[in-house]
């Protein structure tokens, strides 16, 4: 079981990264919408996975993207921030009946409302961090917020749609 499980995870990681690098990195909606779907691989890690594991996974996933986009450690920084926020969000969102051992975030397991809240908060954290660090000043703060909002909506829709195809169980 574990081997197949690992293989599955690896496959999802590769597919999502390839989609991001070769498709969505080329999308630019009026210089404001830059959809980013790769946070999905961190969002979909089972809730009970240890924090260090999630954060290291986030850091290295981000670093792979940085290799491809010449952005130093921008993706790594923002994805790690999201992974850290994930710990807090998952704690806050814990349902009455506690989390099961292998529960994986998603509509199937936790329902629409839980998933929408979980996805939107973490996508906003990631995008805001990303655009703020990219701009690296507060002079164009309005633009950072606008980019966060518009890109966030695009990413959110794409990720929810993708979630319907991967890890349905």
């Amino acid at each position, binding site marked *: 079981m574990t081997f197949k499980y690992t293989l599955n995870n690896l496959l999802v990681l590769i597919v999502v990264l390839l989609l991001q*690098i*070769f498709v969505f*990195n080329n999308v*630019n909606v009026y*210089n404001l919408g*830059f959809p980013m779907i790769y946070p999905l691989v961190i969002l979909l890690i089972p809730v009970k996975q240890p*924090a*260090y594991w999630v*954060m*290291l996974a986030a*850091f290295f996933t*981000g*670093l792979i993207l*940085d*290799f*491809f*986009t*010449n*952005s*130093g*450690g*921008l993706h*790594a*920084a923002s994805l*790690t*921030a999201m*992974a*850290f926020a994930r*710990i807090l969000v998952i704690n806050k969102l814990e349902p009455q009946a506690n989390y099961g051992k292998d529960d994986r975030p998603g509509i199937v397991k936790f329902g629409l409302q839980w998933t929408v809240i979980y996805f939107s908060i973490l996508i906003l954290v990631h995008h805001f961090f990303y655009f703020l*660090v*990219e*701009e*690296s000043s507060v002079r*164009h703060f309005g*633009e950072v917020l606008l980019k966060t909002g518009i890109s966030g909506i695009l990413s959110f829709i794409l990720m929810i749609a993708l979630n319907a195809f991967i890890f349905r169980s």
Partner: protein
Amino acid sequence: MRNLFLFIKQFYPLFLFLFLEIIAFILISGSNAYHHTTFVNSSHKVTGVFYEKQDNITEYFELKQVNEVLEAENAMLRNKISRFKTLADSGKVDTVGKVVYEFWPANVINHTTQKKYNYFTLDKGKKDGMVEGMGVIDSKGIVGMVTNVSNNYSVGLSMLNNNARTSVKHKKSGAIGLMRWTGNDVLTHYVEDITKTAKVVIGDTMVTSGYSTFYPEGIAVGIVTKAELREGSNFYDIEVRLTSNILSLEKVYVVNHHDKIELDSLENIPE
């Protein structure tokens, strides 16, 4: 001591988070420097191969457009040659002078335009004679300069990069200015330091000044879209639009200056 361990155990995600962020920010600050020397860049073998594969596919979609551009350039060069030929035949041109600049064709296999610090990747590297600091132009204007070179690939700083500074010349008057990009609008570059005696009007052309070894003199840079003389100022506030096809780069030329190393070492003598 036991309390300390307990404390660390309880808050280890926070420490790990801070630790990883520090590493990430060190990498970011390295990549934003003018000559970024970080190991995270797309001149690497792995990423280079990936982008080359992608370019092999997407290249076909733009073949027609690329062809048209090259055709137009061919025609222009033919005209130039014929003009020089008549001049040379009449003995008016110094034909024994040595060639200083050479242009090498290269393919852009990856480039970005939507960020504040944009780069492009070329399919030529050390083994093709590429070195850092070479200028890159396309058939219509300047594109950027090479900043990182690996064996088979090289990465260049695009004109659409907050760190790009280019010495430009107002073609009509010869006034020298400095062009930069703020990172907001791909259609707008700013030129400073052009004095008000230059009489700049909208539609004028800015060309390279030839003061650096990156580009030869007189290569097109941009068309003036706005020229204002602020009250009490001796300098114009100029906005230009790049003439190069910076948003969809395909075929470019790398500028090789024959005496580059000699000139650079001469100009950089430590004080």
